[in-house]
Structure formats: structure tokens, C-alpha cells
């Protein structure tokens, strides 16, 4: 029982990081209908940058988020404006491949600059933990979770209580109507892409603090994020967050109590079954129409 609760704690804490990354993808998808296949790699790039800032300037990885988030926002804005909006009609499907290519190119760069060896970011508190009611709470994971919640909260505030947020929501619900109402759809798309990338800027450093990583880590992370997004229903922010935490908990509990060998597998099967019953995901109302290309 102790182990069960302990594994739930582990799962929830890590689920926050997945939630942050996936909600960035959701934000972008909602407005642009593009699935960001490079989200995972950009998070890894930010982990690398944070590693450099830490080793060269002693900047705490949690603080590097303040630099990386705006940087990634501008990057995302630029990527949309320069690359994605030019794709026109074949849009989302091709954009997905363009982003995947960007991710691979980015990995080429990190491989070149940092090599392919595993990187661990080890601040002084790396292995500290608290014991609460007999349960271990690693300090890093706790703060990672707090940080994820804070950034998600900020996103929520922007979306729900600002003029920009209203324009974003309008565009995601009905781009044609939004543009009739004077919303610059292309600009909103660029901003949404920027916000999505900014989520990678926030999540990258904390991912790098929790796990050892290489450029190749992107693929495992990406497959998790895709799963979370689909399960969460692609456009529903709460859905994606719940799905992310659910993923964290299920994997952790199965790994700790049943068998680590089958943990991802059981989740995939669950995903499979859920989607058979509800093709639009548990929480989503969005049903993809038509072919991807």
C-alpha cells in the first residue's frame, strides 16, 4: 500500500511536466490544426541550453526558464511566419512533417554541439528529498511540478481573461468567423505557435533536471506527448492535462506494483481501447475530418 501511494506521488509529479508540454501542443493545435512533432525535441534543446547556462554561468535551471520561455516564443512565432504559413492548402499535414524535419535538424545540431553522451544536470539539490508521512518527495520533482502548475495557470489566465486569449479562442473555434470579426488569424496562429513553443521552453529545463537525456530522448518523449494529446482530445486543455497526469500515474503504478516491463504497453492498449469507444478522445469534442494528406 505504501508503495502504491508512493508510486502515485511519483506519477502525479512527473505528469505535471508532460501536461505542460502537451498543453503547449494543444494550444498550438487548437488555433493552427497543426500537431507539433518537434515539441519534444525543442524541449530537449532547452534542456541542453539550460545545461549550458548552468555549467558555464551557474544559472539555476529553474531560473533559466525565464530566459528560455520568451526565446522560444519568438522562435515559434518566427517558425510559423516563415515556414508554416507558406504551406497553404496542404497545411497541417505538411506542417507536421516540416516540424518533424526541424526536430531532426535540431537534434543534428545538439549532437554536433554536445555530442551523443547522456547529459545530467546536477545542481547541489539534485538528490535532496523530503519525507512526508513516510513518503519520499524528491525536491526537484516537487519544484518541477510546482513550476508546471504555475506556467499552466499563467496560460489559463491568458486564454480566459485577456483580449488576446479571446481572439485565440475565437480563432480556434471558427477561423472564418474570427477573421470576419477582425481577428488577424495568421497572427493568432503565430502567437499560438509561439506559446506552444514557450511551453517547451518552460518544460525543457525541468525535464533535463529530472531525467538524464540525449538528443535521442526526443522520440520517447514525443510518443508520450502524442498519446496524451490524443487521449485528451487534442483541443481540450483540461482534457490534455488530466490525460497527462493519468499517463504519469498509470505508468508509475504499474511499473512499481505489477511489472515495469508492461507499463507503457498497458497504457498503449488502454489508449487503443478508449479510442475505439470514443474516437475523439475522452474529453475532446474535436473529430478529425478527412484525410491527413
Amino acid at each position, binding site marked *: 500500500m505504501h508503495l502504491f501511494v508512493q508510486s502515485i506521488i511519483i506519477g502525479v509529479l512527473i505528469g505535471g511536466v508532460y501536461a505542460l508540454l502537451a498543453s503547449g501542443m494543444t494550444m498550438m493545435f487548437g488555433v493552427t490544426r497543426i500537431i507539433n512533432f518537434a515539441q519534444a525535441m525543442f524541449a530537449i534543446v532547452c534542456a541542453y541550453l539550460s545545461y549550458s547556462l548552468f555549467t558555464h554561468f551557474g544559472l539555476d535551471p529553474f531560473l533559466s526558464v525565464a530566459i528560455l520561455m520568451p526565446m522560444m516564443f519568438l522562435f515559434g512565432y518566427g517558425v510559423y511566419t516563415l515556414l508554416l504559413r507558406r504551406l497553404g492548402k496542404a497545411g497541417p499535414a505538411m506542417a507536421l512533417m516540416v516540424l518533424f524535419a526541424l526536430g531532426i535538424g535540431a537534434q543534428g545540431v545538439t549532437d554536433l554541439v554536445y555530442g551523443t553522451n547522456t547529459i545530467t544536470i*546536477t545542481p547541489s539539490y539534485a538528490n535532496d528529498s523530503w519525507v512526508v508521512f513516510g513518503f519520499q518527495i524528491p525536491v526537484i520533482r516537487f519544484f518541477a511540478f510546482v513550476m508546471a502548475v504555475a506556467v499552466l495557470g499563467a496560460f489559463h489566465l491568458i486564454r480566459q481573461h485577456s483580449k488576446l486569449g479571446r481572439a485565440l479562442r475565437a480563432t480556434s473555434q471558427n477561423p472564418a468567423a474570427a477573421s470576419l470579426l477582425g481577428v488577424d488569424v495568421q497572427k493568432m496562429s503565430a502567437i499560438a505557435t509561439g506559446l506552444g513553443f514557450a511551453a517547451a521552453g518552460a518544460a525543457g529545463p525541468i525535464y533535463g533536471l529530472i*531525467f538524464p537525456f540525449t538528443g535521442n530522448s526526443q522520440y*520517447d518523449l514525443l510518443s508520450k506527448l502524442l498519446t496524451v494529446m490524443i487521449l485528451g482530445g487534442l483541443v481540450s486543455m483540461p482534457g490534455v492535462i488530466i490525460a497527462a497526469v493519468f499517463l504519469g500515474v498509470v505508468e508509475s503504478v504499474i511499473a512499481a506494483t505489477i511489472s*515495469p516491463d508492461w507499463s507503457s504497453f498497458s497504457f498503449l492498449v488502454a489508449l487503443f481501447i478508449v479510442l475505439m469507444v470514443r474516437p475523439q478522445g475522452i474529453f475532446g469534442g474535436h473529430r478529425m475530418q478527412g484525410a491527413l494528406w
Partner: protein
Amino acid sequence: MAAARGSRSPWGQNPFGKGVTAMRRSHTALLRVFSGAAGLLAAFGSLLLAGPVGASTSSKPPLVVGISMSLSGDFSPLAAPQLNGYRLWAQTVNAHGGILGRQVVLKIADDASNPTQAVSNYQNFISGDHVDLVFGPFSSLLTIPTAPIAKRYGYAFIEPSGGSPTIFNEHLNNVFFTQPAPILSSGNEFASYILSLPPKERPKTAAYPTVDDPFTSPIVAEIQQRLQAAGIKTVYSKTYSTETVDLSPVVAAIVAAKPDLIVSGTGGADAVAEVNGFIQSKFNPKYLFFTGGPDDPSFKNQVGASNVNGIFSTGDWFYQDKTAGNAAFVKAYVAKYGGTPATIDSAAAEAYAAGQVVQLVAQRTGKVDNATIIKALHRGTWPTVEGNLSWNAAGSPNGEDIIVQWVKQQLVPVYPPAVAVTSPILKPPWGG
């Protein structure tokens, strides 16, 4: 372990990753597919410009050795030292006049960590380029499908990193594994060490986590079987898939079982993750053994220098070994590639030994053709940096592995006593 860097996780530095791997192999795919297109231009350029690699200065024809290497893809980080070893050997032997007066030329082809390409490469080497010899690729996974090709054409297959039982089960008479022992041996040695402890010091309970990998799980299973038979109670025994990134649930489950001894089948980064997990959980087992990882040059940095002491691993080669040509090898390696003797990967020594074996055959028989090599290597012992090698009919070596331990922040051989530099220490608390 020094043991088989070659026999470490086939998945590269990040041992997690089937999903990883799976997806990660995908980049390789994309890479391979498009590197074709990308390289076209470069290729035509190089075809015109490039002369034969390492043109021979002697009048005799060069001795061309074909090797498929994982220069890209999953295995590439782990394969790099093996290639270094091969290259260092070629350089060394050429500096001394080559083999029987023939300069050695290595032909390296990239297999992108993929069996399809590896098979093609050896086909090309043997039937297309008619190379004189071939050496093995990286890891058992690529050695298994390629060894039969060499066999078909009557080529000797001297291979430094294919130590999986599957290879020897094929009973190919042209295979020679240039490590002192097949991978299962390291498990045997560690079990022997534990059982050699006086009853009072012997662990009562043991946990056996392992990554699902052909090179770690058999070792762990071997140890578990012997220790269980000797009455050490198993409190945890589970396999996690190579795609596992977050090991903390596994660590939590082990910690909950409170074992005295942990025998962990690991490839590298997962050992780091487990150690960090134990430290975070403030759990200090009496004995901690990893099949791979603690010998990694970056291990000390990643878990903290004060935490390494007392951790066991295993190896086939050690830089302080007094084996044939080892001192010269270590010196030359550091001179050529930098670093310190302690950071030399055993895979380099294994590859170097493959070359030494050929050299020895040439010295003893005056010939370097494949038939002679195959015939010669099945008899006698062959002193290399990996020790005195000899093989059974299936190419499995007859020696044994070494158990190493971090003592005073140095990784040293501690068992069996014949090769021990110092005797094993008791594990101090974390940070001590």
C-alpha cells in the same frame, strides 16, 4: 563493466529506449533515406577526388580489412571506442612495417545500427571489394546476422563485441570473440564472490532488477539462480523494458523490498538513475552491483564522486592489466585520442585485441589468409591486451571476467583474487 561495453545495452548511451529506440531508429531511417539524396553530390565529388584510403608505401599489396561500423544510429555512441581501437591497431601495426610487410588498410562502412545495412556491407566487402579480411561490427545484434555471411565465403570473423550466447549456439567455426569470457561469465564471477563471503557478511536478501536486453538479463538470471540456490532470498525480481525513461517507480519498489544486495542489469544511464534514486530515497544497500554503467567515464560526475565508493561492476579489460601489449596500447590510445587511461573504454581494447590476434597468426604461421587464421586460432592461446585468449569450437572464449569496484573513487579490479589490485571494500554510506 569493462565487460562488455560491447555487451552493454545495444541501445546506445541511453539504455532506455525501445519506444525511444523504436522512434529513435526512425530518425536513423529518415537519415538514411535522405542521406542518400543529400550525399549524392558529395559522393560524386569525393569519387573524383578521393584516392585509395591510406595509400600503401610498400611494394606489397595492402592488407585490406573490411569492417561495418555503427557510425550513425542507436549504437553509434557506444560503437565509437570500438572504431578507435581498430584504427589505433592499424596505425600501430603499420608503424611497425605492417603485417608480413603489407600495410593494413581499414575499410569502414556505416551500417546505421541496422542489420539490413550491415548484411549489405559485409556482402559488399567480401563479394564486391574482395577485401582480405573482415572484422566484426558492433554488438551481438549485428554480429549474429553478419557472421554467417563471412562463414559462407570462408572468411574468419574475428569480432570484439558479439558475446551473446545466441552467436555461439550457431556453432560457426569461423567466429572468434576477442574477449576473455562469454558474457555469462561475469555473472558467475560475481556470484562466486558473494558466495565466498563469510556467512556473517553474506547478504540475506537480494533484488534483481534488469533491463530487458540480451546482454544484461542473462547475467542477472545467472547470478539470481546461484544465489537463490545458496539460500539468499529474492525479494524483488523484475525486468523493465529498454524504453523505460523514468526509473523512479522501479527504485521505489526496490527500496520498499529493502534488500541487502542489489544485482542490477543496466546499460549505462539507467545505473546513474538508479543510484540517484537510491540516494534520494536515503536507501543504502550493503552490496550494489551493476552489469554496466559504473565503468562509464562520466559515471563519477553524474552520481557525484562521494557516492561511487563500494559500487561493483564487471569487466573484461582494465587499463592496469598486465596483459600483452597493454601498457603500450594505453599509452598510444591516450596519445591519439586524449583523455586519461581511466577513461579508455574497454570496447577499444576488445577491438585492438582483434587486430593483435591477426598479427599473431601472421607471426606464427607466416600467412594471413582466412583459412590459416581459422585453423590456427582453434589451437593454442593468443596473448592480447584482453589477456590470453583461446576459443572453443563455436568461437566462445575460455577465460573469465573480472569483478571491479569503486575504491577511493577509483575503479579497480577486486575479484577473482588472481587479478585483484585490492580486496573488495564494504559499501560506505552515500556521500561517505
